[in-house]
Every structure is written in structure tokens, then in C-alpha cells.
């Protein structure tokens, strides 16, 4: 077979699908049919192509071996009723913007307040309203008598009840963190770290200026925030596990 003949064969072969699908003019069809009448190879190829098309039409549609509906339902359900702290996978989560915004606000306010407080001359600070020597009944409810002066709380660093409460909550959160969305856990930990850093900053600043009203207030505020965040997070882990 010459190269020229092979080229001619290829040109016919390449058009067999168009012929099969009736995608050519009458003149082209006539040309192909004339060629087919004298070419056994092309007739065989045409028969094979026809068998392929026939086989394709017999392919059956099969359902997947595993049920995919639950995955679909999880993804479409939240779009109908968005519940706060509830993710699509029945994992409870804070919304990311909320936590990020809270973290940023926390870091900014913490740093700014500590800076303002430490820059102030303690001699012009408002008088401190000292609490009693016993810690407040609850870290979230620091005792402070009514006064016209700025409210301030001087807290003890060794607040046993607070530390116990934090310890218990951290333990509970640690046990249930696998029930929370991983992204929520990541952001939660970042926020707790930011709060701890703020508390640590206050603690160091208070060592130099223990009577500073702003530092004392800020210290209590950050500890209360940590307590509140841990309480909320542990409540969600328990809710997710129920």
C-alpha cells in the first residue's frame, strides 16, 4: 500500500463517524458508499464503529452504592434556616466573622488599654475602690460598691475559685472539642490565646502599678471574657454531643 493510498484510506476512515451519524451531504454520502463497496477494511471499521454506538446505547444507569442524600441534605438545610452556631454537619460552630472580629477587637482594646493605663501617672488615677480580701462570689460578677467614682476592682491574682472554674471548663472543652467544627476550634483557640495574652499583659502591668484603676478593670474584664467564652464553648460541646 502506497503512502498516497494510506492517506486516502485515512480520509475515508476519518469520515465514517460522520457517515454513521448522517452528518454529511448527499454527495459526500455517495462518495463514501462508493468507497465502502470496494473496501473491506472500511466496511469492517464501519461495523465496529456501529457496534460501539450500539453498545453505548445499552449502558445502564446505576445508583451509587452509598446513600448520598444525607450529604446533600446537610448542605441544603442551612440555606433554609440559618441557626447561630450550628454548622451543616451538625457540628456546632461560632460564625467565623464573629470570632475574628471579637479577637481583633479584643487584641486592639487590650493593647490600647494597657498602654493607656501604663502611661498614666498613678498619682492622678482615680482612687481605687478596693474589694474585700475575699474574692468576688463569681468572677463574672465582681463585687463593687455603688459610687460616683469610676468603678474599679482590684482582684487577687490568686483567685482560687476562678482558677478552678477555668480549669474545669478547659477540661470539659478539651474532652468535647472533637464535636466542634475544626475551624471553630482553631478560631476559638486563637481567641483564648489572645485573651490569655491580654491577661498576662495586665498582670505584668499591675505588678508595676497595682492601684491602676484601668488595669484592674481591664484585668477583670479579660478574665470574665475568658470565662464567658469557655462557658459558651463547653455548652456547645455538650449540646453537640446530646
Amino acid at each position, binding site marked *: 500500500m502506497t503512502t498516497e493510498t494510506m492517506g486516502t484510506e485515512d480520509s475515508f476512515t476519518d469520515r465514517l463517524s460522520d457517515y454513521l451519524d448522517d452528518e454529511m451531504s448527499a454527495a459526500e454520502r455517495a462518495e463514501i458508499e462508493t468507497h465502502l463497496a470496494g473496501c473491506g477494511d472500511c466496511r469492517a471499521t464501519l461495523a465496529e464503529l456501529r457496534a460501539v454506538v450500539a453498545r453505548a446505547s445499552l449502558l445502564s444507569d446505576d445508583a*451509587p452504592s452509598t446513600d448520598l442524600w444525607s450529604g446533600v441534605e446537610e448542605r441544603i438545610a442551612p440555606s433554609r434556616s440559618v441557626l447561630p452556631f450550628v454548622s451543616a454537619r451538625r457540628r456546632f460552630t461560632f460564625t467565623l466573622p464573629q470570632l475574628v472580629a471579637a479577637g481583633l477587637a479584643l487584641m486592639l482594646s487590650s493593647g490600647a488599654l494597657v498602654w493607656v493605663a501604663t502611661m498614666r501617672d498613678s498619682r492622678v488615677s482615680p482612687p481605687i475602690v478596693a474589694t474585700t480580701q475575699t474574692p468576688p462570689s463569681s468572677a463574672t460578677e465582681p463585687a463593687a460598691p455603688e459610687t460616683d467614682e469610676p468603678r474599679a476592682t482590684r482582684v487577687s491574682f490568686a483567685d482560687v475559685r476562678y482558677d478552678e472554674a477555668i480549669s474545669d471548663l478547659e477540661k470539659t472543652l478539651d474532652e468535647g472539642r472533637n464535636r466542634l467544627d475544626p475551624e471553630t476550634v482553631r478560631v476559638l483557640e486563637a481567641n483564648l490565646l489572645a485573651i490569655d495574652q491580654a491577661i498576662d499583659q495586665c498582670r505584668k502591668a499591675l505588678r508595676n502599678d497595682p492601684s491602676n484603676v484601668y488595669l484592674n478593670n481591664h484585668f477583670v474584664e479579660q478574665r470574665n471574657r475568658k470565662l464567658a467564652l469557655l462557658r459558651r464553648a463547653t455548652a456547645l460541646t455538650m449540646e453537640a454531643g446530646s
Partner: protein
Amino acid sequence: MRAVTATQAAALVPGTRVFRVGRGPESPSACRKESRLRSESPERASTSEGAQQDDYVAQAAGGDVRAFEHLYRTHLPKVHSLVRRMAGGRDTDELTQDVFVRVWQKLGSFRGDSAFGTWLHRLAVNVVIERFRQETTRRQRLHDGEEIFETLSAPLRQQHFSMDFEAALMSLPDGARQIFVLHDVEGYKHHEIGTLLDISSGTSKAQLHRARMMLRKFLK
């Protein structure tokens, strides 16, 4: 809630099979028309079933998850098989879920101008094509020139002549396989494929022929 009409009776459904056994010089166009009408999509199995599906579509568009589940279960085998063949068996379950999530999101835009099955299958094809475009872009960005491995592995795959036809289909190059599935399995025409894949009809024809020529070896 938008109205969903039940006016799909006369439409030919691209998402249905075209039985072309024995087709060729004899009477191709007549065979195609008869075959399409014989191979109805799920919603047209009967008038009452079609009306019931219209109800489900309307209810689902209004937010009824249970109605949507009915639609899902009715069309799942077809969509899953379409996705599996189009995607070459990759991420089939995930893509199928993507399709139905997309359907749920887009139900509000379905006006009933075509059969629901037609609309759904077109949407499924688009989901797969989108994924492939994203993957292609990513692959080109990360592994420029990796196509050489595709070329090298092709002759090896062709040696498995006894391979099941479905498996053979999966082994085709992506472009040829998708066009083969759309044309010979799903019944799309070349100009429709051209629109879907953003290619010319000529390219579609050439790729279809290429796919058939490769697949015929598995039927020997």
C-alpha cells in the same frame, strides 16, 4: 411560589438515550427520532407521574426538602451515571452531591420551559465541565507540561482489550470521553456539545470519532 408548568410533553430530551443499533445508511434520522421518543426521561413515564413530578418541583422550589428528596431519588441513577462517565470515575459521589445542591439553589430559575430532567441533566453536565475547567487550570498552573505522562500511559491502557466497556470508557482521554458520553450516551448533538464545551462542532465530531475508534478495540 413560582408556577411550574407541565408542558414538557412534546420536547425531545437530550438526556435520553438514542438507540442506533443498525443505524447508518438505512434511515438514521427516522431511527433517531423514534429512539428518542421511546427512551423517555423519568418524569415522562406517564402523565400522572409527570404531573406528580411537577408538583414535587414546585414544592421543592418553595423550600420543601422532602419533595426535593423525591426528585433526587428519581433522578439519582441517571445523574450519578452521567457524572461518573463524564468525570471518568473521579469524585463521582462528591460531584453528584454538588449537582443536587446546585439544583436546589437554582430551582428558582427553572421556569418549566423544558423538561425538568433536561434542565437537571444540563446542569449536571455544567457542574462536571466547571470542575474540569478548574482542575485543568490548576493542573496547568502547578504541573505545566505534565501531559507527557498522559501520552506515555495511553498505549499501555489500550492493551486491555478484554476490559469492560464502562472501564474502557473511563480510560479515554477526558475530552474524547466527555464528547462520546454527551453524543452517544446522552444524545446531545454536536452543536449542543460545542456550546457546552466551548468548542466547534468540527472539533466535537473529530473527538467523537477518535473516541469511537479507540473504543472499538475493546469490543473485538
